[in-house]
């Protein structure tokens, strides 16, 4: 091992330890942040009163709930007693938030708690790396041990901090009111610390592996240089994908089989209980069925788009303008589109009903009637996608050699036969692509439902995304929402896999 490699190893180890310390520090900060974040704020604002705690900053205790509701920021606790950890208090039924309590956090204690894992991690990693010279397997074992040490140190430190805070809250609560059932300190940071530490451990292992790889390939400098350069180019996007896409997939699966109560500090494994809950929930099935019905607008729009493309497939002046115009619905703000369509579909003053009345047809309560609400949303979506699908079909038609059609014509095939025997088969790849991507896309639709119907009337337009949104952010059942997300993800993955299989067999530009 060359001195350069040894220096690199030390550097990596130091960075790794620093990252671990950073995560631990962030975790402890996160406890304060949790009190500051909108969850706790929203809960506290909805509270009927603030429980006076001995450590509560002067002034805040005297305030009633109304005052707390008005002033969001002062709840962020920085008073005579120093920084505070606040916690919402629930009633005996575990239903309503009726108060909030707080305990101070002392900076010196916190600094000690951060310093401990820092020193421990640094010592572990450096020691193991520097004093186990020799072969790669031993260094690998040292790296794993170092990672484990970092992980454990940070987890212990953050857990201890939480326990201290919880313990301090208990007497404050006991001094408060007998009606209070329990106090819960919201600890998202612990779960996150675990998540972040896994990421840090992965990154550290990767870095150590890179140094080892560099060592092993020292005889091939060009390859080493190119690889390092390329990984440098890829690192930013890879880091983001790890934190915001790949990590969350694992996290999602984890949440879906655990209880995730925002206010509880323990999150027991519950197996498939949330999935069973979904299976027994008629509203979930309703949303799934609504989604499938809603997706039917895709084939319907495709038929219209193909018809339009067949008529427009000829040299026409101004077709370029049309190609721009048909994309307006796609680029335009979806909220604006939802608003104008809600206005167009208005029962009493909408343009559409005015047109119906003008030709002596009865008014339709498009968005207010469970029978027509979903079809109305499908109509809006069809309007938005028609142009795009037509342009794709047009491109497909223009790729078909004219000689083929000419030959068929000379053989006496009529227009329908030419369509059925030549155009339709040749457009099949385009149609499959449009159908599958369209259906996948249709399951993403949130804005129209959110603005125009809010899932109503009587759940007629409740689709999975909206249900996930409501379950998580209105009913605060993140675990059930995660289970629902898993179902949705599997459904869309199946469709995507199907699409990729189909595309593989077709020309790339299909």
């Amino acid at each position, binding site marked *: 091992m060359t001195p350069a490699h040894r220096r690199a190893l030390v550097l990596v180890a130091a960075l790794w330890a620093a990252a671990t310390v950073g995560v631990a520090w962030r975790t402890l900060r996160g406890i304060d942040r949790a009190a500051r974040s909108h969850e706790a704020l929203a809960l506290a604002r909805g509270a009927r009163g603030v429980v006076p705690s001995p450590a509560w900053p002067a002034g805040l205790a005297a305030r009633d709930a109304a005052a707390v509701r008005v002033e969001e920021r002062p709840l962020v606790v920085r008073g005579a007693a120093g920084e505070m950890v606040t916690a919402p208090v629930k009633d005996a039924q575990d239903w309503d938030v009726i108060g909030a309590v707080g305990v101070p956090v002392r900076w010196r204690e916190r600094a000690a708690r951060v310093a401990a894992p820092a020193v421990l991690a640094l010592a572990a990693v450096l020691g193991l790396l520097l004093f186990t010279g020799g072969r790669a397997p031993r260094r690998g074992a040292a790296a794993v041990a170092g990672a484990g040490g970092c992980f454990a140190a940070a987890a212990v430190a953050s857990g201890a901090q939480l326990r201290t805070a919880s313990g301090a809250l208990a007497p404050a609560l006991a001094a408060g009111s007998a009606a209070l059932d329990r106090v819960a300190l919201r600890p998202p940071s612990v779960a996150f610390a675990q998540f972040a530490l896994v990421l840090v451990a992965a990154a550290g292992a990767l870095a150590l592996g890179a140094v080892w790889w560099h060592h092993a390939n020292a005889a091939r400098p060009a390859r080493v240089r190119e690889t390092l350069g*390329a990984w440098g180019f890829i690192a930013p996007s890879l880091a983001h994908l790890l934190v915001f*896409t790949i990590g969350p997939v694992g996290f999602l699966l984890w949440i879906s089989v655990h209880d*995730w109560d925002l206010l509880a500090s323990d999150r027991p494994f519950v197996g498939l209980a949330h999935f069973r809950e979904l299976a027994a929930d008629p509203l979930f099935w309703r949303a799934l069925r609504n989604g499938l019905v809603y997706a039917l607008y895709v084939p319907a729009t495709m038929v219209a788009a193909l018809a339009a493309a067949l008529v427009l497939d000829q040299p026409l002046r101004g077709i370029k*303008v049309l190609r721009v115009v048909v*994309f307006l619905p796609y680029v335009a703000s979806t909220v604006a589109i939802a608003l104008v369509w809600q206005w167009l579909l208005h029962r009493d003053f909408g343009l559409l009903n005015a047109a119906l009345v003008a030709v002596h047809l009865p008014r339709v309560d498009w968005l207010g009637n469970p029978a027509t609400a979903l079809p109305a949303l499908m109509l809006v979506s069809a309007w938005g996608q028609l142009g795009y699908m037509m342009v794709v079909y047009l491109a497909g038609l223009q790729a078909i050699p004219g000689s083929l059609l000419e030959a068929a014509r000379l053989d006496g095939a009529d227009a329908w036969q030419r369509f059925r025997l030549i155009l339709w088969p040749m457009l099949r790849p385009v149609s499959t692509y449009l159908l599958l991507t369209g259906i996948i896309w249709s399951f993403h639709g*949130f804005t129209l439902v*959110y603005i125009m119907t809010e899932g109503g009337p009587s759940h007629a337009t409740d689709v999975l995304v909206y249900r996930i*949104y409501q379950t998580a952010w209105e009913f605060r059942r993140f675990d059930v929402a995660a289970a629902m997300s898993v179902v949705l993800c599997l459904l869309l993955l199946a469709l995507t896999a199907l699409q990729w299989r189909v595309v593989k067999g077709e020309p790339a530009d299909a």
Partner: protein
Amino acid sequence: MPDPRVRRVAGYAAALLLALAMVAPFLWMLSTSLMDEFEVYRVPPPLLPAAPRFANFTEALTALPFAIYFRNSLILAAATVAGQVITAAMAGYAFARHRFAARTPLFAVYLGTLMIPGIALLVPRFLIVDAMGLVDTMAGLVSVELVAAWSIFLMRQYFLSLPRDMEDAARLDGASEWQVFTRVALPLARPALATVALFAFIDAWKALLWPLIVSRSPDLRVVEAGVASFHGMYYANWPWQMAAAVAALVPVLLVFLVAQKAFLRGLAFGGFK
């Protein structure tokens, strides 16, 4: 085929009808936005305002602090564009041009992330951002869309389609890899960069669900969320709502009209992600 002249007329008629169908809701939005508050409740509805009332715009856009919303949307869009353009150009270039250890498995991982629908990740992403203490901050708002696998693929395909001669020539002249990338490859890839930037801008501007869950305080609201809450507050005032909707449309339509070419290129690549 019938008589070509009949077909031609049918073609123009269809084109006109289609264009009208696409544009009519926008025109109706514009027309309503200029009407008097009670004019819209006349039966049958007037198609045009009796006297255009431009005050609707100033009134609607000051009823809620839309200036702040526009600022937030612009910051979100600018950060998304910058993040996606930079990361996509770098990663796309590396995948297209460099032969390096673990390229194939890494590329498979990137391909895999394309398959995962973003909406299914809302819950874990939110909890992660929350745990980072970034809920209700600009950083949290911006964070999740800074990198898009789709953009990386587009850039990779584009770089693959470019000849390598100029890059090799620059290397022979002693340019470093970074110089080859920034001075030679990037200028050639400008069209693809424009496409990535355009789609990133449109997607960021239209985003509603993520901003809705991650930002609660009014001073972090984006335009889409602002118009949505405006809709809830002034439910009966359709001219104001339409004025707000028109205002929300203007920036993204302008960008689209300026950069149509980039848009069509993106569609050819498989546009609707």
